[in-house]
């Protein structure tokens, strides 16, 4: 054990499977994991859902035993001596089980006692943790009465009552707003610096992984890549670009266009009013640009360049030119997220499993997308006809034409009080048909309350509220028939099959007979559920569950779809797939109202509303909100706006 630089975690050919009793088969969580993590570093575990991140952390914590292989933590064989490892490490599980019937102080005391912290050490430690977590004022409050972000911070504080030799954190920032998220990371960073903690953290946020010294990318139980963020990012070099959409065109429309050019574009996301995308081939844009500028003669060069880089098939019939419509493209520095998408896509090519690309590959799917294309020319035509005029016609997009119509949601001076507590104060806004409207705000800002009132689940204290042309104060049932609601938690019957669930909801919405069957078939196709339609829905993976929930909410063809934190805890792939569907729905005329903690997702929205302490802080397009925040990206703008408002209130 006197090796010069002992690893905090060393895995050798670790394998772990789980027996799924309901499905009667064995699933693989981890296969042949070889990993060595050095002492004193901050390491991130990233990867899609089901990659094995949590299993790996639980194995390291001695909570699970591997089927094969050896695991050493701090030089101790954790399989043989789990207790001596557990005496030295601290672990914060994904759902940190705070004792909700104990107060903040009692929770801290419990963990301090269990770790045997001496009284004299405790006093300064508590003071520091409470200050860092900003829980000073709440020490006597029961943990169950804290907001989501505060609970996470208390969980972290309980985990950190002492300086462990190794700190394991399993998705510590899931469901936490950007402010609390930043604070949590400040705490971690501070401790790493001052106490030289070794930390292994799993996360769905790649910007968090970017702060770490090492990143381990897992997928389907295997390690795809392992190294410092710089070296991972370098893999995506030469493929990353940004482009600004023409004025009046939402970024997500250009993004959809780019993603539809599946053979050339690997990934595209709206970002700060631009679209950031990544090509399959290195240097593809340079070639495409020159191809465009110098006319058709250069096209051959482009396809050469593309195939030379060993990427997309540039075969005759399909397009090999980016659908950019003469917009100026700038190269940009790759982010970790680009590397993540690239590496997973490469792995995908090997395993042929379908994820995001399934949507764009299968062009007949979803119907909304077909409807969208029906309003213009078919996709491949669009490209071969030269992209120039294309985006300009988009200005006459149905959404813009609709702007004069009466709004589908009209909220005027909405107030909701719980006793003395004002959850929502004088809120006024309206949402147009086909708009994607985002509700953002820190934990406990009043989003959920607003949401529930809009869905008719909670009566307003005062103010007027019209949804889908119906006054919610008088005709709540009528309004409900016109809306679909996707709750944050999986609210379907786990022991019913997918089809049985859909049949039940169709019945609940008053559909029957032929109409019901037809709608069920439509949504099954639309959401790609055909393969799983007869299996029990409780066994579906996260992405499928959400698709099913959305399918159920859309059975009665509602005018408005409400989604409450649909992407909380989802990996970047699942989130992209989700937003593809939302974009398609909005194009087909469904109004979408959504809450999220991922600020970059606000970029998909037509307009967003930022709330805090029940008050409206900002309302406008992402661009307007960003400029109001005065900073580059949405995350910064959000934090700026909320902090400024809080500062003003405190003064």
């Amino acid at each position: 054990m006197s090796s010069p630089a002992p690893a905090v975690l060393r895995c050798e050919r670790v394998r772990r499977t789980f027996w799924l009793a309901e499905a009667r088969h064995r699933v693989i969580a981890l296969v042949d994991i070889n990993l060595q993590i050095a002492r004193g570093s901050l390491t991130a575990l990233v990867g899609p859902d089901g990659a094995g991140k949590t299993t790996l952390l639980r194995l390291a914590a001695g909570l699970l035993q591997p089927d094969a292989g050896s695991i050493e933590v701090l030089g101790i064989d954790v399989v043989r001596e789990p207790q001596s490892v557990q005496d030295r490490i601290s672990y914060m599980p994904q759902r940190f089980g705070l004792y909700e019937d104990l107060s903040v102080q009692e929770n801290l005391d419990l963990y301090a006692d269990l770790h045997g912290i001496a009284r004299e050490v405790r006093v300064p430690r508590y003071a520091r943790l409470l200050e860092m977590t900003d829980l000073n004022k709440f020490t006597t409050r029961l943990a169950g009465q804290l907001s989501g972000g505060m609970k996470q911070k208390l969980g972290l504080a309980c985990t950190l009552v002492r300086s462990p030799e190794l700190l394991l954190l399993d998705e510590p920032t899931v469901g936490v707003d950007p402010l609390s998220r930043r604070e949590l990371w400040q705490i971690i960073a501070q401790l790493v610096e001052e106490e030289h903690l070794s930390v292994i953290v799993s996360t769905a946020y790649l910007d968090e992984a970017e702060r770490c010294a090492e990143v381990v990318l897992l997928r389907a139980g295997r390690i795809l890549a392992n190294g410092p963020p710089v070296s991972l990012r370098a893999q995506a070099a030469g493929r990353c670009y940004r482009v600004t959409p023409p004025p009046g065109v939402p970024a997500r429309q250009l993004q959809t266009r780019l993603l539809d050019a599946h053979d050339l574009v690997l990934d595209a996301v709206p970002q700060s009013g631009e679209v950031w995308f990544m090509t399959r081939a290195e240097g593809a844009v340079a070639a495409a640009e020159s191809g465009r500028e110098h006319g058709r003669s250069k096209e051959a060069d482009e396809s050469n360049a593309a195939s030379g880089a060993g990427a997309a098939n540039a075969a005759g019939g399909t397009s090999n030119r980016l659908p950019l419509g003469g917009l100026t493209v700038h190269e940009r520095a790759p982010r970790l997220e680009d590397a993540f998408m690239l590496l997973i896509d490469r792995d995908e090519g090997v395993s042929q499993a379908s994820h995001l690309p399934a949507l764009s590959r299968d062009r007949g799917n979803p119907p909304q997308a077909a409807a969208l294309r029906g309003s213009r020319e078919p996709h491949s035509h669009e490209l071969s006809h030269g992209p120039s005029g294309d985006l300009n016609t988009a200005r006459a997009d149905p959404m813009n034409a609709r702007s004069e119509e009466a709004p589908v949601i009209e909220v005027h001076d909405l107030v909701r009080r719980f006793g003395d507590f004002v959850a929502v104060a004088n809120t006024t806004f309206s949402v147009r048909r086909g708009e994607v409207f985002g509700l953002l705000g820190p934990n406990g800002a009043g989003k959920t309350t607003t949401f529930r009132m809009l869905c008719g689940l909670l009566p307003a204290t005062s103010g007027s509220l019209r949804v889908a042309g119906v006054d919610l104060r008088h005709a709540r049932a009528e309004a409900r028939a016109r809306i679909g609601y996707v709750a944050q938690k999986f609210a379907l019957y786990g022991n019913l099959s997918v089809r049985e669930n859909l049949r039940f909801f169709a019945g609940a919405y008053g559909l029957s007979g032929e109409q019901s069957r037809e709608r069920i078939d439509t949504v099954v196709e639309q959401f790609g559920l055909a393969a799983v339609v007869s299996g029990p829905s409780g066994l579906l993976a996260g992405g499928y569950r959400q698709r099913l929930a959305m399918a159920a909410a859309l059975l009665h063809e509602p005018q408005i779809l409400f989604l409450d934190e649909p992407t909380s805890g989802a990996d970047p792939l699942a989130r992209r797939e989700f937003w593809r569907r939302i974009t398609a729905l909005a194009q087909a005329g469904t109004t979408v109202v959504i809450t999220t903690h991922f600020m970059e997702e606000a970029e998909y929205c037509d307009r967003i509303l930022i709330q805090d302490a029940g008050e409206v802080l900002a309302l406008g397009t992402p661009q307007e909100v960003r400029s109001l925040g005065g900073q580059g990206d949405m995350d910064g703008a959000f934090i700026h706006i909320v902090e400024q408002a809080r500062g003003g209130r405190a003064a």
Partner: protein
Amino acid sequence: MSDQASGAVRGFCQRLLALTRKETRQLLRDRSNLAIGLALPALLILLFGYGISLDVNHVSIAVVIEDASPGARDTIAGLRLSRYFTQQDVYSMRAAETLMEAHAVQAVLRVPGDFSGSLASGQGRLQLIVNGSDATTARIIEGYVQSALARGSGPINKPTLRAATSTALPSGTVRLEERLWFNEANTSTWYLVPGLIVLIMTLVGTFLTSMVVAREWERGTLEALFVTPVRPTEILLAKTIPYFVVGMIGFAMTIAAARLLFHVPMLGSAALLLFASVLYLLASLGMGLWISALTKNQFIASQTALLTSFMPALMLSGFLFDLNNVPVVVRFIGELLPATHFLELIKTLMLAGTIKSIVLTDCAILIGYAVLFIGLARLATRKRLA
């Protein structure tokens, strides 16, 4: 080395204290716990003490008087005086039958038209018809009628019973001196109270604790707790201590009610009674924690606890039905239950006295069960997620 050992002991005590404090706080803050642990026992005591009684009181009886002579009236006068009967006079058998069919009366006593004549010749016969659908009650009513008539005037012939057996004993030849042992007053409260102690201890011991570990599994609180220096034994002990205290409070309440409200005698050793109760409570706690650790689900755990401990303790321990009168298989199952032995033990101690052979056997059996269940609970409590 001894330093290390003392350090380990200090750590153990500190962690146990912290966990026990936490369990106690949780117990006190959860109203449903307090309701099941303290309010329900109090309710059961009152219910069993005052509400439920296996004594038969106020039997409504129709008396068909076909012979209105003074002799006949004297004979049935005892009935009228008895607090056990509510008498209703009718003048035809037909009317009596109607009342019987309508369940308005539970028995019919017929004084035939020739009663005074036959009484004079020493052949007096009365007819008693009892609703036999509840055999136990029917038999009790038979007994009541006999003794009530005996208290009435003069020589008595055993009535003819059409409902059950028909016997006619010659009067004056045999007089039955009945005497009940161990419960001289034949007050059912006396034997309900020992049963109540068993039920309350089972309720707190198994039913309440069956949910405490499962609750932590459901709420995900164990995962973080496991990755600390805490040992499984400490978790288990910390769960046992507060519920042990609640169980003993229930025991004290029942004993106090038994002595002060219902005046149940305490013929045997009180210390032994306490000792036996501690043993039974430990066995129950062990069983509850074992169920809880195995099921990891509050609903399944509570159902399992109800079906494997509370219901058998109620039905099969000899509390409601005498195990001597049930089929062999049921009796065998009954003998397997710790509750059966505990019930036998406390009944003996309270109503009969310290009978060595019974006390020793039952205590030994309870010790065995306590060790077994606590051992199983300890084996099932492991710091593993799967």
